[in-house]
């Protein structure tokens, strides 16, 4: 494997692994805060049990997310030293603030996990909320750093020199808001649906039904609300990408030809030689309308981008189609949930309804991974859009392939262990929380 390809694969693997744990780590505390609040208000022990059961999951996910995040802060230098040498002082601002946010999160987590029956219950509850809030802030800051790579600002690039550096301008670059919003909602959608899905499965299997029903309702509300909001934030993001990174948008859509009435291309197999997309559904003018609110306005296609500046089209296109397709499914599921909530309460006990949620368990996270593939692959061949190429940033050390294999082995085994542990957590629910939960089967 080529060194650059290996480095990119290792980075993709590390980010793809970390993103799941950080999403769960930043969203689950809010679920816990709700059930914790319900416990404090109603004194129904089931809510206390749910909070405790979730907090064990969070501890596992947080620990894994913290170490994989630490690894990333080193990997930036291990894999991309040339990039960090120049970019560090420019886009480092959000990272230095994130250090604080993450630190606060870790401290609050210590209070929360180990503080049961030890502090004033409301102080204890508040520490849980702080975990969530600082987690979200961390997430936003890290995404702001990433958005700088898509939308570099806060410096002048003259004759290969980076001068006139302004880290605040770099942090609040043109893309930060759209990206941070899209990611934050995605985290809620993916985590909410995943957690709800697991509890739905347990209800279908008739295990500790009272416990799982209450847990399902808390997680599902977050998941479905975010799923319904997400397409709107996606629209904002796409318009933004069209402005700043037309090559990325063209690759996402596999949009080869610049012409009026630019079509929205759904699905299909891009043929790079013939420069067209086979087997796709094309809706003329819709892409123009979505980007410019005008059916006739031409959208810049790949024919306007020099070959050497084009991102890999098929990967970007497939990833984008996957993300959008799953996003639509999630929105439909969300609408179904609200119909049930407002009109058809009996659905909540219906097997088909719960099974739908069970099947939807992984789709939010698949969409998150696909979305990051679009962001990162769509920026190629640049590591800093229009300024530095990824190939120029990679470490001179040969043999990164082996390091990639090592990371693959480690992260695969870790994933297996985490899944195995979650399985055991869920299996043990009736045993661990039986005494105070007489309704459990």
């Amino acid at each position: 494997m080529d060194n650059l390809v290996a480095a990119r694969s290792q980075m993709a693997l590390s980010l793809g692994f970390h993103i799941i744990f950080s999403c769960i780590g930043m969203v689950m505390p809010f679920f816990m805060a709700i059930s914790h609040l319900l416990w404090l208000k109603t004194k129904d022990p089931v809510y206390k049990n749910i909070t405790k059961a979730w907090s064990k999951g969070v501890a596992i996910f947080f620990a894994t997310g913290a170490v994989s995040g630490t690894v990333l802060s080193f990997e930036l230098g291990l894999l991309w030293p040339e990039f960090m040498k120049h970019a560090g002082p420019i886009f480092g601002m959000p990272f230095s603030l994130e250090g604080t946010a993450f630190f606060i999160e870790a401290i609050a987590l210590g209070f929360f996990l180990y503080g049961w029956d030890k502090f004033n219950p409301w102080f204890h509850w508040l520490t849980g909320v702080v975990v969530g809030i600082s987690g979200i802030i961390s997430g936003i800051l890290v995404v702001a750093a990433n958005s700088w790579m898509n939308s570099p600002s806060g410096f002048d690039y003259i004759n290969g020199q980076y001068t006139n550096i302004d880290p605040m301008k770099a942090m609040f670059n043109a893309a930060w808001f759209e990206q941070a919003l899209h990611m934050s909602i995605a985290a809620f959608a993916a985590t909410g649906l995943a957690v709800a899905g697991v509890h739905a499965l347990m209800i279908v299997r008739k295990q500790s039904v009272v416990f799982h029903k209450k847990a399902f309702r808390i997680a599902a509300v977050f998941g479905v609300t975010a799923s319904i909001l997400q397409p709107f934030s996606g629209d904002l993001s796409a318009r933004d990408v069209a402005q700043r990174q037309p090559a990325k948008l063209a690759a996402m859509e596999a949009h080869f030809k610049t012409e009026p009435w630019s079509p929205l291309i759904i699905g299909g197999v891009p043929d790079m030689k013939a420069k067209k997309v086979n087997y796709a559904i094309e809706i003329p003018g819709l892409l123009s309308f979505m980007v410019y609110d005008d059916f006739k306005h031409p959208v810049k296609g790949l024919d306007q981008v020099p070959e050497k500046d084009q991102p890999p089209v098929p990967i970007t296109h497939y990833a984008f189609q996957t993300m959008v397709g799953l996003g639509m499914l999630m929105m439909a599921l969300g609408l179904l949930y609200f119909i049930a909530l407002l009109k058809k309460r009996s659905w909540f006990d219906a097997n088909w309804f719960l099974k739908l949620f069970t099947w939807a368990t992984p789709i939010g996270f698949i969409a998150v991974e696909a979305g990051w593939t679009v962001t990162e692959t769509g920026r190629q061949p640049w590591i800093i859009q229009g300024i530095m190429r990824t190939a120029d940033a990679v470490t001179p050390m040969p043999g990164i392939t082996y390091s990639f294999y090592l990371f693959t082995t480690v992260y695969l085994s870790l994933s297996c262990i985490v899944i195995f542990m979650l399985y055991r957590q869920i299996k043990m629910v009736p045993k661990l929380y039986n005494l105070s939960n007489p309704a459990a089967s």
Partner: protein
Amino acid sequence: MIYVIIGFLWLSLLLYLVMGGADFGAGILELFSSRANRARNRKIMYHAIGPIWEANHMWLIIAIVILFVGFPVIYSTVSTYLHIPLLIMLMGIIARGTAFAFRNYDAVYDNMQRLYNRIFIYSSFITPLFLGIIAGSTVSGRIDTGAHDFMSAYIYSWLNWFSVSIGLFTIALCGFLAAIYLIGEAEEDERRRSFINKAKAMNIAAVVFGANVFVAALSEHIPLADWVFGNAVGITAVAAATISLVILWYLISKGKRKIIRILAGFQVTMILITTTWKHYPNIVTLKNGGYLSLMDGGGSDKTMLTLGLALLIGCVFILPALIYLIYSFQRGSVLVEDSEQH
């Protein structure tokens, strides 16, 4: 502002060494505990370190962020030429962090625990060993930015007697810190005595490995003795460390719990002062005799200003919360045990 940033960098390294070191040490001590005692010691450790576990490791992240924002040339040079030891250290960090969480939060208590414990113990050795190797390599003058072959660029930069000796010394130091810390956490006399014995053993190990570092330096023509004893600050720090060590052992025999921790932390502070003072601000020594200095190659003025402010504002939030956390979970203040732990 640059001095504020350098101050924070130094402080985060120190706190990582002291706080993180103590919990690396807890894993190291576990290896030297008899099987019968291990479960009991683990429980003490879970209560003593669990709540501040994640926070202890944040210091490393703060240090690395300061490096890549404020001193990007140092960060990128070190991560290029010390890629391999950094990679191994990262593997240690992954293994330790996850094994700690797994063994404490696995819902079923069975044979898997043996796997988690084994991973935890081994990674508790590997991580500080390689941290020490990396620290040693930055000053040993083996980083060769002009190297043309793989071995001299990426292997000999860190694989030498001196760096490995520093790694071994770091292990002993971590074990010592942990033993001193846990003396204060032990509730029974018997357990306390066992931690005192471990502290003694680790103290002896630290002296032996420390001497080994000097021998290694001598044989590899690294003027370590000059760095340590060639200036007033170094000599004073070494003297203070020695005197405080004597006081420490006297107080242990008197049964003091809290003050010995402060003294152990003081020891580490003195060691870090001695080893960094003479180099400052040249924190990386290159093979060609050049240096990478904290004073040049830094970010722009605006970068340094915002980084410094971010750190100052950050510590206003972090320090009170952290101090309250540590205070709240001291021994004796843990009244209610988590009844659901297994």
